[in-house]
């Protein structure tokens, strides 16, 4: 057998389960064949039932959506991808050629109208589209050495996708609607080489259609040399309008625009293509370019809210000098020291005290509803609490039994009335002193703590704000973005020996002599 041969005879005469799986997963008949076979089945039926054409034909009045197998989603869109050459025009043609079965069209191209181009207005964020297989396949058409799209000058190994824009549909003097269709420009060295269109107007089983080609990319490059343009479409095709209201035809072979629309009317921001638009890369051969597609929220932490019971109290702020055995800002360190990464929504923030023999120390308790975790130790929906450094503490709790001490380092003692002591609180600020925002989702590096309370690892640097599928760490350099897979990989890393705390102190047999009273001494062994 040739190395490229493959014998799949074993799949023959399979059990029902296998046949069902084959049917669900793979397409067995092309669209053309379906139509042909349907006609044949009808002929057979009529001959058997003895029906004439007249008594059988009836007018169809309304249909409904029916279930299609999985492969339909992929290949209906795929077929569209191949067929359509234009961008917005392509979408228009696509609609013209839509088959009768969805009940929206009669199938005659001459009854086509602009209103029918609008379709669904339900938009999918373009960031989510970058994840779809059809998008990735569409992108590969630009980089593939086989140059399947027959791009002039292609293929482009380093093709990238810039931030998408949309068009608007206009008539003679007004904008009718925005076109619910993302136009992802494919660029190479700041020049447009084609488009990937994600058409959300007429979803099939909830999925948008993808199509694209070189389209009007060369014309767009040429047009932008004169300045920025706002895109718009009519039933004839795609046009661009400059700030001085001159209109340029982008699609080849379309008539000049004869209406009176102005730049001010057309420009909606999302359809403005500037000279610099091609540089705004959001996807390249390495995948998504996060920095350009994630808009970091205005804040990912916030100043703590003073608890009600502390309102009216005298609050002193202090920043303790903390030393850590590793650099907390380095996420690799936090990941390596953590037992788990718990992802969850912050329900509440409260301030507690851990009491010791001589005084106490405050900590912040973050109550979280779990949405995921790496180690599989908690379940979705579980409520967990995570402790992190800093918080509010009363003077009484902070000083404990030492509160009323006098002499030595205590001098004359606290020198406050009981009322003053009761009103005295401290706000211990660790790093920024800010806390996670209630209602937002974070990923927390944690280690097992006492009494079911998890300890945060890395303080605020070990709390990553979840933004879609990106996790944001705030640090002294600004923000760092991570994907979950990267974090998981970091958690598997072994620590370098020199980053671990070093407690290897050799035993000593030395003795020291301590003078305790004048003329007397005490010998103490050091162990």
């Amino acid at each position, binding site marked *: 057998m040739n190395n490229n041969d493959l014998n*799949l005879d074993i799949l023959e005469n399979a059990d029902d389960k296998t*046949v069902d799986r*084959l*049917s669900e997963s793979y397409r067995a008949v*092309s669209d053309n064949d379906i139509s042909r076979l*349907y006609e044949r*089945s009808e002929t057979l039926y009529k001959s058997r*039932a003895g029906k004439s054409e007249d008594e059988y034909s009836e007018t169809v009045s309304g*249909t409904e959506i029916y279930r299609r197998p999985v492969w339909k989603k992929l290949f209906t869109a795929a077929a569209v991808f191949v067929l359509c050459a234009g961008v917005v025009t392509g979408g228009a043609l696509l609609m013209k050629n839509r088959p009768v079965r969805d009940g929206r069209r009669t199938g005659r191209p001459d009854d086509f109208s602009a209103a029918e181009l609008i379709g669904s207005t339900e938009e999918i964020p373009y960031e989510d589209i970058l994840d779809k297989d059809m998008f990735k396949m569409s992108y590969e058409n630009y980089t593939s050495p086989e140059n399947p799209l027959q791009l002039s000058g292609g293929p482009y190994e380093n093709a990238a996708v810039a931030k998408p824009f949309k068009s608007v549909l206009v008539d003679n003097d007004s904008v009718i609607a925005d076109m619910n269709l993302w136009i992802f420009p494919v660029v190479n060295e700041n020049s447009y080489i084609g488009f990937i269109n994600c058409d959300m107007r007429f979803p099939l089983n909830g999925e948008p259609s993808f199509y694209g080609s070189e389209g009007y990319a060369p014309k767009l490059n040429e047009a932008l040399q004169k300045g920025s343009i706002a895109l718009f479409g009519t039933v004839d095709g795609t046009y661009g309008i400059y700030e001085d209201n001159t209109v340029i035809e982008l699609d080849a072979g379309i008539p000049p625009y004869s209406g009176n629309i102005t730049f001010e009317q057309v420009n909606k921001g999302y359809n403005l293509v500037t000279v610099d638009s091609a540089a705004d890369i959001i996807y390249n051969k390495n995948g998504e370019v996060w920095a350009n597609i994630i808009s970091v929220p205005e804040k990912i932490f916030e100043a703590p809210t003073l608890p009600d019971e502390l309102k009216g109290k005298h609050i002193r702020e202090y920043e303790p000098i903390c030393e850590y055995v590793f650099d907390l800002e380095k996420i690799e360190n936090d990941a390596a020291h953590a037992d788990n990464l718990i992802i969850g929504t912050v329900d509440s923030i409260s301030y507690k005290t851990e009491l010791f023999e001589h005084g106490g120390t405050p900590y912040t308790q973050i109550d979280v509803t779990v949405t995921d975790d790496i180690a599989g130790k908690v379940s979705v929906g579980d409520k967990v609490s995570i402790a992190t450094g800093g918080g509010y503490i009363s003077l009484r709790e902070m000083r404990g039994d030492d509160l009323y001490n006098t002499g030595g380092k205590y001098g004359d003692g606290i020198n406050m009335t009981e009322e003053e002591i009761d009103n005295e609180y401290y706000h211990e600020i660790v790093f920024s002193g800010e806390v996670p925002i209630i209602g937002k989702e974070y990923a927390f590096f944690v280690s097992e703590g006492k009494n079911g309370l998890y300890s945060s690892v890395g303080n605020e640097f070990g709390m990553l704000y979840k933004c879609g599928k990106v996790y944001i760490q705030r640090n002294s350099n600004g923000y760092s973005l991570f994907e979950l897979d990267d974090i998981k990989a970091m958690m598997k890393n072994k620590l370098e020996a020199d980053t671990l705390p070093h407690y290897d102190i050799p035993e000593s047999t030395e003795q020291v002599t301590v003078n305790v009273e004048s003329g007397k001494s005490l010998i103490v062994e050091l162990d």
Partner: protein
Amino acid sequence: MTHEEFRNKMKISPQQAHRELFETYCNYVYTIVFNRLRSCGSREDIEECVCDVFADVYCFYDTEKEISGDISGFIGTIARRKAGLIYKKKCSVVDTVSIDDDLVQELRSEHDIESEADANERRRIILDMIAELGEPDATLIMQKYYYGRSAKEIAEIVPMTPENIRVRSGRAVRKLKEMLEKAGISL
């Protein structure tokens, strides 16, 4: 599609109901028939059988009966029986034996449950591995090596040129063979 949905559609327009039924289940029926007749029937035989199945469904479906549930079971049964009949007619080499013949006592079932279970497990593993290739490779493998389509025919249903399909399916089959080898499966 459920029986009830089909009956309701039949009341509005039998022709439209037939068309929707055909479009929904054509792939299902074709898969069943192809699976049975792949080795012994021509493509024309398979297509004729598929059309026959639907013609039978249209003819014999009783719209008066209040049956509920998914209609796929009904269609699947007709498809399997029809394909089985054609298989017997075209491909079966089993001789007919009289019921009075002494040989009847010695005849064994054609079904070997143990080996069928093994084969099913192997099929499952092979399909898992093909799926693991991801798209479009999995589809290219199935279309080329199972359905026996040419690169030109495959290009009608995937957004790739025939040249691209040849190159990509070659790579995909080599990758699949490596995976099968690791799993100790030879085809």
